Every structure is written in C-alpha cells, then in structure tokens.
C-alpha cells in the first residue's frame, strides 16, 4: 500500500536555512545540507528547499546547496523559489533535484508548466500554490503570489485544475491563513483540492503537533504533509511524528536502515 509521506521544508536564504511566521521575520536556523542529512537519517520521506534569496547570485548559491544535498541524501527532493524558465528548471534538475516547484511564476506565465512537463516529464513539475480564505471567490479561496503579498484574481480550484491540465504532476498547497501558526492545517481547503485533482497533493502550513498531520492526511485527504517549525526547533523528530502517524493507523515508512 502506498505510504503517506512526511516532507520537511527548508527555506534557504543566501545558503542558510531560515524560518518565518506568516512569511515574515525570517531568522537563520542552520546549514541546509546539515539539517537535511539529519532529517534523512531520521526517516524523512522527501525534502523541499525553497530559495528565498533575493540577491543576484541566487542561482549559483542554490545550485551549490542542491549539489551538496544530492551527493549525500538518497531520497527525492524538490527545489522551489525564483524558478521562472525551463533553463532554471534544467539547472536544478541537473544539479540533482528530483522535482522543481513553480509558484508565482506559474501564475504570471502559466505556459511554463506546459513547457516544463514537456521537457522533463510531469513528475518533475510541482505546482506550489498559496491560498487565502476569501468568501468572494467561488471555491472560498483566492490564489496569492509573491510569498503571500500579492492577491490575484484567480480562484484556487480553477487554478489547480488548470495547472493539472497543463502538466503539473503534484500540488503543494500552502494555506496562508494557517502558515506558521502551528494550530493545524487548513483541512477544508486541502480536502477541496485533493478531491478536485488526480495528482498527489502535499498539504502545507500550520503543522504544530503530530495529530495535525493525522487530520490532514486522513480528513484532508492529502497524500503527503509538509512540516517545518515542528522539527526545525527540536519539538519533535521526524521519526516521532511517523510513529504517531503509524499509531493512528496511517501507512508510513518506519523501517529506514539496515
């Protein structure tokens, strides 16, 4: 039986891991490669690196991080942030990433999803989408971009369906309302998206306790749950979280090394 994935997200700025609350006030918390190795040894199923570097040297810095991760960590990982062309995607895949995640750039020029899927296969193209609760939208959620700072006119459900048609092979759904709160995932929104698309959905934003993951994987119908703060600050280990999921009856990978 396919297992539920626990995905750890590392925000990388200038080669260092950072963490903010509701996309603001980021502080450095460590070396991304070092942290990734720790999570790998602890049984994480997948990793996501978001490049939030603003400087001109961003691509070189991130490429180096990706190469170092790929040399040591033998599980799939995805890279996002600032990827705006097929060449950017190719650079990250050649550096060793399994998948690339498109967010703001996909909203601004959706053809990049089609082009990426054609060039590398759908399984390499992840749509990252930031959703904000909004009663004026048909689905009840509005797509926001630029790390949550800019509202768009796109409805969440219409957008994820379009992205899937264009060739997105997976969707990472981040709730801006829940992000960084540690009060739990936005279950309604996750379930809505998961039932609307045929590709896997990774729930993101709001995880604070293992039972939050249980809820979103079971009731939210997510295929995977993304976490950050709850492991970055040492409140839980990845293994503890997976044991809790297993105890709740969810299929997870617990046997991780000989």
């Amino acid at each position, binding site marked *: 039986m396919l297992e539920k994935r626990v995905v750890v997200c590392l925000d990388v700025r200038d080669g260092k891991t950072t963490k903010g609350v509701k996309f603001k006030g980021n502080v450095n918390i460590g070396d991304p490669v070092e942290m990734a190795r720790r999570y790998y040894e602890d049984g994480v199923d997948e990793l996501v690196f978001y490049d939030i570097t603003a400087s001109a040297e961003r691509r070189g810095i991130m490429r180096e991080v990706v190469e170092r991760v790929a040399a040591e960590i033998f*599980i799939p990982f995805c890279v996002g942030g600032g990827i705006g062309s097929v060449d950017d995607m190719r650079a990250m895949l050649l550096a060793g990433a399994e998948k690339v995640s498109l967010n703001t750039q996909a909203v601004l020029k959706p053809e990049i999803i089609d082009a990426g899927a054609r060039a590398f296969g*759908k*399984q390499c193209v992840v749509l990252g989408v930031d959703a904000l609760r909004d009663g004026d939208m048909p689905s009840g959620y509005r797509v926001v971009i630029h790390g949550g700072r800019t509202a768009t006119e796109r409805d969440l459900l219409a957008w994820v369906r379009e992205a899937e048609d264009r060739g997105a092979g997976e969707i990472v759904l981040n709730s801006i309302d829940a992000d960084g709160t540690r009060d739990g995932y936005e279950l309604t929104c996750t379930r809505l998206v998961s039932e609307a698309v045929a*590709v*896997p959905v990774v729930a993101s934003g709001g995880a604070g306790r293992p039972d939050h993951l249980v809820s979103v994987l079971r009731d939210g119908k997510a295929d995977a749950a993304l976490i950050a703060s709850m492991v970055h600050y040492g409140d839980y280990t990845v293994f503890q979280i997976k044991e809790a999921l297993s105890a709740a009856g969810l299929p997870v*990978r617990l046997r991780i090394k000989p």
Partner: protein
Amino acid sequence: MRIAIVNYEAGNLRSVETALRKLAFEFEVVSRPEELLRADKVLFPGVGDAGAVMQVLERSGLAEALREYYRSGRPMLGICIGAQVVLERSEESEATCLGLVPGLARRLPGGAGLKVPHMGWNQVHFREGHRLFAGIPQDTSFYFVHSYYPEPAESEAVLCETEYGIRFVSALERENLTAVQFHPEKSGEFGLRLLANFLSR
C-alpha cells in the same frame, strides 16, 4: 570490473551516479554502443515516455547494443523506464521495445482515489532469498514514480510485487537481466544496499 551507466539523454541518471559515488564504485557513463559493449556490468536507468526513450535508443544504436549485451550473458540492472522498455512493447505511445523479456508495459488503472502516477514509498514483496535483496527485510518500502508497470508473460520472470489497487510486478528477472520499477537510488539506505548488492556480486 567496468561498470557502465547508460546515458541516452532522457534519463535522470545523475542520482544513480551520485549513489554509485557514495558507494565508492568506479563507473563510466556511456552513450555509444561500443562503450556499452565493453562493460562488465550495466545500469540502465531513466524516466520518460517509453516511445521517446525507444526512439533515442534506436537512433543512437544503443538499442541494438543493449540486445547484444544481454545476449552476452553479462549482468544488467534496469531502473524505472529501464524495467519497461526491456519488454516487447509498451502501452505508452504504443512503443515497440527492446524485446529482451516477453511481455508488455501496461498503464496503472488508478481509480477509486488512487492517483496516477503512483508516486511515493510503497512496499516491495520480493522472492525470498534473492541476492539482490540480501540484507533487506521483506516488504521494505522503496520510492516509486511511474504510470506504467511491467507485465512479463512468464511468471518465472516475476521478482517483486507491489500493491497499488492491483498487485503489479515491481521487479523482474530473466537470465542475466534484473529490472526494478522503483528507484533504488532514491530509496534511502536500503536502496543503496540493493545497488551495492547488484554491483558487488
């Protein structure tokens, strides 16, 4: 011993290279038929559309070289698309494949909440006592990303099975050819162990 990784410009072979480096095996990446035929062990990884992959293999002469290499009796490990194009044909793009193993690659049915591609970690039930799985517990999880799966015509060719709505063949073996549908290079420490088992036997 010459270990070769087949490069046909469509595969995601970087991760196989880094895994072999981690395991401290020397290898070469080959893209020409004569280089492939010099190898003692061949890894044939990759992702992509079976039709597109076969086009590249036929055009480059690698298809014929792979057939000749297989006939020579030397060990070969196919990974992912490498476990599909070794069959006679694929439902994907209606491709005619290498024909090393009787059978065809079929599309996963999905449905009933099962998403296609089948993406993530899933348990692999292997033929007990097989040396590729030495040191690996029965039903260990490996990482999968695929929409098609191999269906060999001969039941003796079935090496592993995995459940995803249906029970499908997740690895096959025929003579000197072994092929896995999952990605050992992305399956953590047990995946590395499997690669080491293939390379060091």
